């Protein structure tokens, strides 16, 4: 296959542009240069023939560039004509003749306006997020009461399925991570308390910290990353493929069918996981205290019994279902906000995790103030 050429031959008061070779996509860069140069022709000759009889192969790229050349020359005040077209290629050139001038993609605004625009939209977005969250909370509560009145509507199978996903399958990783965190907290405590000869207070610190705060907070963060993201991705891809619309048109309520079972599963799962996590962390801490700090198990246990009260445990456990609700609501709102594109799915999954963790920590702070005020 020979490369394309475009020769200029003077012919009386006219000019012939003789195209030859292969005018195809594969040679597009070369073609573009050839045509670009020929377009700048500003000779005084009024008549220009674009002779394509020597072209061995023509496709839409070639045909378009010939047409573009013709248009440019005509606009330049020349009488331009395409000559020597075989019947087959004539149809192709006719086809591209219908092409209107290209519409440029919408230009992005200037840098400053883009920045301001972004800030404005984000602030506006915060308001929208809060409204969507409140809206979802209301919808879930309403669905809950509907199901309460007609228990047959409750989707037990679905709840059990999600419970397996978010609770049972999460147990190994949650236990492992909290165990390791327990070990680390105990080790750090021992290391620093030892200087004051206060080794044994490590047990107090570990007990209070794990039961009140760390157990539930860590587990909630893990669940937001693990299950919140899964909820968003599931709901989001169902939204993208119009599955949610299909449900609606069949008379199902998406909240009842998809969201309520997920929320119930999460609200049941998080306390269980938080409990298991707290136990694993205490176990890890106890192990380190024994092996590294020389606090033997029986004195660890008796110290633990003195240090903590049932209140610490209750404070931790009370927080768990609330955090589960926060994670679930955020995840479902984000899932339903997914638009048609894969990119949007990715964005909403990310923001589901980020917002989920953020709200979990905010809730934890609110609880801390509340419990401090009522003196527990």
């Amino acid at each position, binding site marked *: 296959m020979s490369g394309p050429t475009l020769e200029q031959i003077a012919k009386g008061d006219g000019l012939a542009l003789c195209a030859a070779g292969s005018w*195809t*996509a*594969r040679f*597009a*860069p070369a073609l*573009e240069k050839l045509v670009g140069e020929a377009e700048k022709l500003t000779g005084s000759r009024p008549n220009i023939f674009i002779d394509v009889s020597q072209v061995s192969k*023509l*496709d*839409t*790229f070639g045909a*378009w*560039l010939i047409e*573009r050349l013709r248009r440019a020359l005509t606009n330049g005040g020349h009488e331009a004509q395409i000559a020597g077209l075989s019947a*087959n*290629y004539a*149809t*192709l050139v006719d*086809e*591209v003749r*219908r*092409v*209107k*001038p*290209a*519409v*440029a*993609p*919408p230009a992005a605004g200037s840098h400053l306006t883009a920045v301001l625009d972004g800030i404005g939209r984000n602030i506006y977005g915060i308001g929208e997020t809060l409204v969507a969250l409140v809206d979802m909370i209301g919808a879930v509560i309403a669905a809950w009461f509907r199901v309460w009145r007609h228990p047959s509507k409750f989707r037990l199978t679905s709840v059990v399925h999600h419970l397996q996903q978010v609770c049972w399958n999460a147990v190994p990783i949650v236990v492992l991570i909290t165990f390791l965190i327990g070990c680390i907290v105990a080790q750090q405590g021992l290391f620093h308390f030892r200087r004051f000869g206060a080794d044994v207070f490590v047990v107090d610190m570990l007990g209070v910290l794990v039961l009140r705060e760390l157990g539930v907070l860590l587990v909630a963060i893990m669940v937001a990353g693990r299950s919140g993201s899964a909820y968003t991705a599931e709901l989001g891809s169902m939204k*993208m493929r119009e599955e949610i619309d299909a449900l609606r048109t069949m008379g199902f309520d998406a909240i009842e069918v998809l969201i309520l079972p997920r929320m119930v599963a999460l609200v049941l799962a998080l306390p269980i996981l938080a409990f298991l996590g707290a136990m694993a962390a205490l176990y890890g801490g106890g192990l380190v205290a024994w092996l590294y700090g020389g606090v033997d198990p029986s004195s660890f246990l008796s110290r633990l019994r003195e240090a903590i009260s049932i209140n610490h445990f209750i404070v931790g456990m009370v927080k768990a279902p609330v955090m589960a609700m926060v994670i679930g609501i955020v995840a479902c709102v984000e899932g339903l906000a997914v*638009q*048609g*594109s*894969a*990119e*949007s799915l990715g964005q909403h999954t990310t923001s589901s995790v980020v917002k989920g963790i953020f709200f979990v920590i905010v809730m934890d702070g609110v609880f801390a103030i509340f419990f401090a005020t009522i003196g527990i």
Partner: protein
Amino acid sequence: MTSTTATPASATATAAASTSADAIISVRDLTVAFGSRRVLDGLNLNVARGEILGFVGASGAGKSVLMRTIIGLVPKVSGTIEVFGTDLDGGDKARRDVERRWGILFQHGALFSSLSVRQNIQFPVREYLKVSERLLDEITMAKLTMVGLKPEVADRYPSELSGGMIKRVALARALALDPEIVFLDEPTSGLDPIGAGDFDELVRTLQRTLGLTVFMVTHDLDSLHTACDRIAVLGNGKIIAQGTMADMLASQHPWLREYFHGKRARAVIG
């Protein structure tokens, strides 16, 4: 190639007889299975350069699977597939050279959802050709016009298009690099009859002007009638018949009789 046969054994013989140097796609003894279920079972097929092959068969017969196997998306159990005379098992380099020369329209469009129509069409061009933004935009407009879409569509996203528009954009993307072969999986389903007619016309024009080879899976009797040079029928994992429309109409095979002489067929073909 013109004789129609009803029995698999002689169909194989016909296919083998049509083996020739000008076969641009040649499939030999192809077997494809999902688990223990064989979808294609010793299938033979040749597609000649520059022809429009219409491919029919019952829903679920394996038409899409055959197409996806030829283009390398579904692994085969046995058999060979040659495109442009290149064995597609012959390594990545050979594959990539071939991939640049074909365009594919998937049954459900498979547009990139995070890219606009314009970006979808430009995507393969950018990858393979170093051309200016201006030419890219112009080529996009040319392709959109060719498939019968307005220029305004260029900056919409796939989720904002109708089903028929998705088909057209997907075709424009398949044609973006002016390929030598296009694989079309049910290109006219979801188009209005006028649009479908234009589409057949377009495929014809492209074939005449660009020498395009078209492998078209379709259920559209109009398309088969007006656009296709040759028709191949898939059944029981094999080609049960191939030939021109006249051959199909003359065939005594029960499924073919039902297909081409059914109520809907009579309305079209008369």
